[in-house]
């Protein structure tokens, strides 16, 4: 059995190999190009420069806070979609994934029209509590959470659907409340899915650009995250744009490496 498989692997048709190699090159060469152009010698110095440091710190803080928001709201949402007895669950599930395919800038516009100072909800927040979300770090967190949450929900929901509900039922028959069963039985069994979803969610939040710049604006130290800094740096200081890009690239690769067991090595 194994020998036939090995022989089949040796006879890969050229019609497939050629486009495959071109595809591989297409995806990898831009990344390699970035690394080649990077000013490696001054990289540490640039990295610890004030503006880059500010953007990096803000990015890490905001992405982490957004991930917390996603966990707190997203895990229960995933549970509702996987186990809840709600009408129109299929439609609901589809709607939850909309931000995945929606251009982030559209998400930002939507947030602005709802939570902006003149927005549907925002005008009341402003009038009653004096809270205005655009141009604040909280706005960045919201924009990132909006874009990243579907990644977490999908991962957790998939894990929940794969998990055997009979353990929960057994726990229930033994007298555990639904909340206790969820906490002590369900959650541990889907932990790998939650972890993978969290990492992916964090990485997506870290790279968020469109919704952030549309909804939260751009001010150093408050709303200028790494991707925004890259965009602005390109206008005047391409060198530092490359440094920022390399950092984001390394983080992304790091995240994928951390998820290696789950995705990169496949089902084997």
């Amino acid at each position, binding site marked *: 059995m194994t020998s036939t498989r090995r022989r089949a692997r040796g006879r890969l048709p050229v019609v497939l190999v050629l486009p495959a190699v071109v595809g591989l090159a297409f995806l990898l060469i831009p990344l390699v190009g970035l690394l080649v152009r990077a000013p490696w010698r001054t990289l540490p110095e640039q990295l610890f420069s004030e503006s880059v440091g500010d953007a990096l710190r803000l990015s890490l803080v905001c992405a982490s806070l957004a991930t917390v928001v996603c966990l707190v709201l997203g895990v229960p949402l995933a549970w509702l979609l996987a186990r809840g007895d709600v009408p129109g669950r299929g439609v609901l599930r589809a709607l939850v994934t909309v931000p995945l395919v929606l251009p982030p800038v559209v998400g930002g516009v939507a947030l*602005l029209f709802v939570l*902006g*100072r*003149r927005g549907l909800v925002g005008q009341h927040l402003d009038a009653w509590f004096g809270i*205005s979300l*655009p*141009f604040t770090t909280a706005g960045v967190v919201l924009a990132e959470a909006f874009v990243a949450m579907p990644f977490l929900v999908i991962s957790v929901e998939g894990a929940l659907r794969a998990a055997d509900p009979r353990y929960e039922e057994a726990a229930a028959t033994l007298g555990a409340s639904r909340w206790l069963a969820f906490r002590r039985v369900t959650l541990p069994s889907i932990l790998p899915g939650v972890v993978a979803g969290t990492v992916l969610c964090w990485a997506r939040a870290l790279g968020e650009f469109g919704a952030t*710049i549309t909804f939260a*604006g*751009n*001010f*150093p130290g408050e*709303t*200028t995250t790494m991707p925004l800094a890259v*965009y*602005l740096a*390109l*206008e*005047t200081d*391409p060198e530092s744009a490359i440094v920022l890009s390399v950092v984001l690239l390394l983080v992304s690769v790091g995240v994928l490496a951390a998820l290696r067991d789950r995705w990169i090595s496949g089902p084997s």
Partner: protein
Amino acid sequence: MRALALVALMVLTGCGATGSDGAATGRITVFAAASLTGTFTRLGEDFEAAHPGVEVVLSFGGSAGLAQQIGQGAPADVFASAAPANMAQVVDSGGTAAAPVTFARNRLEIAVPRGNPAGISGLADFGDAEAKIALCAEQVPCGAAAKRAFDAAGITARPDTLEQDVKAVLAKVRLGEVDAALVYRTDVRSAAGEVEGVAFPEADRTVNDYVIAPLADAPNDAGARAFIEHVRSEQGRAVLAEAGFDVP
């Protein structure tokens, strides 16, 4: 009969009523600063109407970004920059086919949402921590001009956001998300009805020259020169003046 043939010949060779524009044919690609969006769209349409068969393709963006794209071989025929500095970048690398000329000037104005709800009356209000303020980032021309104004007035601005281009700043005013912003006078006029302008004395320090030049690697050199001629014609000047530009 002969007269008819002559007319047909003139039409075929693109020699229309505005014969001074030369024999423009085909597609003319114009890279223009974002603040020229309204006027150049109009100028492009007028030019197409005067030259049947000619297609004017406009690409708007930040002047620095456009200069960079040209430097990297973007197939453009004309570059209209909101700042001489960005044009100089292209000139220095041998990217222009003729010396750039100044065809318009713009100056900053304070833009406030309709009705001026925060009661903004001058540049001094930009130093107020309470007011929500949007400005261009200093790296882009409108931001640099704003800095000159604040320096001249001796005011430390306290912006809430520094946007990447002037249209993004204007959008925040239109939406009422900020109380005041500094944009070009032309931007205020383009959003009349939603946005009101407040003039300020230091605006003289913010005058910005718009320069235009045909590009060395232009796929359509004749078209490029004809379009620039159109921009500088009486008709072109009228369009620019109507939009709020000072026309030299």
